[in-house]
């Protein structure tokens, strides 16, 4: 508990480094659009920069990296349900899309 009583003790330089990194990553993800990358290259770059940015914000700015492991697990496990949900809804969306195509083709 002593750590929490004292609060966060990180050198201010750490925040500036993360800040700078977030600026660089944001610029890179903007350039993905600016240079009009397409297809899988575009999607993988967008996801890569997104996860790096999100990771930095959560780990350092939100201080998550230094939290007790009990809290980390309690917050991380429910997120897995979101991934399952994404999969379910993607399957459903494919089904809807196929039905719309079939309908627009005018099959009986």
């Amino acid at each position: 508990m002593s750590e929490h009583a004292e609060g966060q003790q990180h050198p201010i330089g750490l925040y500036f480094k993360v800040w700078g990194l977030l600026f660089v990553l944001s610029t890179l993800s903007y350039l993905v659009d600016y240079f009009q990358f397409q297809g899988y290259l575009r999607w993988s770059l967008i996801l890569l920069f997104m996860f790096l940015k999100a990771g930095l914000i959560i780990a350092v700015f939100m201080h998550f990296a230094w939290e007790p492991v009990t809290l980390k697990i309690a917050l991380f496990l429910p997120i897995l349900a979101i991934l399952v949900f994404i999969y379910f809804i993607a399957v459903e969306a494919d089904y809807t899309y196929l039905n719309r195509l079939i309908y627009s083709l005018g099959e009986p």
Partner: protein
Amino acid sequence: MTTDSMTSRAQDAKPIGYWQKMVNDWSADKEAFQLSWGKLMMWIFLLSDTFIFSIFLISYMNVRMSTTDEWPLASEVFALHVGSANIPLLLIAIMTFILITSSGTMAMAVNAAYSRNKKLTFWLMVTTALLGASFVGMQAFEWTKLIVEEGVRPWGNPMGAAQFGSSFFMITGFHGMHVTGGVIYLAIVATKVRLGHYDQKGFQIVEITGLYWHFVDLVWVFIFAFFYLW
């Protein structure tokens, strides 16, 4: 914690491992989370908020995948005329940088609060709130441009799939409301820091406020990637 029962388990000499620590936290006859309730509740609230924004983004994924119409090109819809040039996503990029900058000033405010520098904490939080307010202002500008000039409505738009408008207004509207709420929250806590309301209790409230603010920035990272760039 009952120290005698712990030491009798013949593990007193060994340092406690990563997973062992979690098992101990959950199996000990006391509260599992060694955090102040305020911070824990903020984390749990943010987890529930994560689900809300996930549902918005997942429903956006659903309508975008299932529509047979062409999805409007975000890069062109959100382009800004500067002189004669048409720069794609310029306003969105500026908004992104503003929100990241506000996250940086917020992190420094937390740092200042724990070194009990009240004046610096106050001004850093005010800066954060002002950056947040300018973000909302730009969003208002963006919405106006989209509604008045581009003719985007929740039920349709001239560029393509009708679901574009409803997804856009729902997701960015809800995020904008979070930013607005955050600005008010920051203003209140900053004022209370200034007035010395936390001198006795300690300044963890600044960290808790910071958690909320960083979360708002975090959500924008996902909206930026999935709605504007994808």
